[in-house]
């Protein structure tokens, strides 16, 4: 049971470099999310998608872009990485019905030096 899979799991970037985090889910979920987790701040929503080809901004979208070209994939991009983007990133997904549970990936640890 794969569920929600994130790649890469660990990455070190230099300031100004770009990278893409990939999220894939095999549960046929309509909604997908990217969160970042920082000490003392819990999980903050970066961007989300309610279906293929759609994306929307969350609480902390600046410095990130996303794309949902296929229903099963949700990509998070950093065009020019900054040290403030050092964090743990979690992808999540759920079915459309509003009471449904969110399922999380295992996380991607990103360090920007």
């Amino acid at each position, binding site marked *: 049971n794969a569920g929600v899979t994130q790649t890469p799991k660990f990455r070190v970037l230099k300031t100004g470099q770009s990278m893409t985090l990939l999220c894939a889910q095999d549960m046929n979920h309509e909604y997908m999310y990217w969160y970042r987790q920082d000490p*003392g701040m819990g999980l903050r929503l970066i961007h989300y998608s309610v279906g293929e080809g759609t994306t929307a901004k969350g609480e902390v979208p600046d410095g990130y872009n996303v794309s949902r070209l296929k229903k099963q994939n949700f990509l998070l991009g950093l065009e020019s990485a900054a040290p403030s983007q050092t964090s743990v990133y979690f992808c999540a997904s759920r079915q459309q019905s509003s009471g449904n549970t969110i399922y999380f990936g295992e996380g991607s640890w990103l360090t920007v030096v």
Partner: protein
Amino acid sequence: AQSVAQPEDQVNVAEGNPLTVKCTYSVSGNPYLFWYVQYPNRGLQFLLKYITGDNLVKGSYGFEAEFNKSQTSFHLKKPSALVSDSALYFCAVREASTGGFKTIFGAGTRLFVKA
């Protein structure tokens, strides 16, 4: 706007004692409420949720939570704590409407159970 508050950064309890992890929320309209647990270097795992019906919700690993609409609270409880319950716990809220796309999480409470 939705928000969640977990007033305690850490909760310490002795093994075998009851535990409570507090959560209060703010949302326009009716809420859907969730508790998740996170073990070190892992993703969040679902524990339980309140959607509608009985205010006392039972979930995984012997945990339960009580929805209190007047106090806008959804505290997590367990009658007898285990050392293995030590982890980071997150409360979350989602607006119960057709536009309720976003789930907002609290800052988390670290539970430490001492043997």
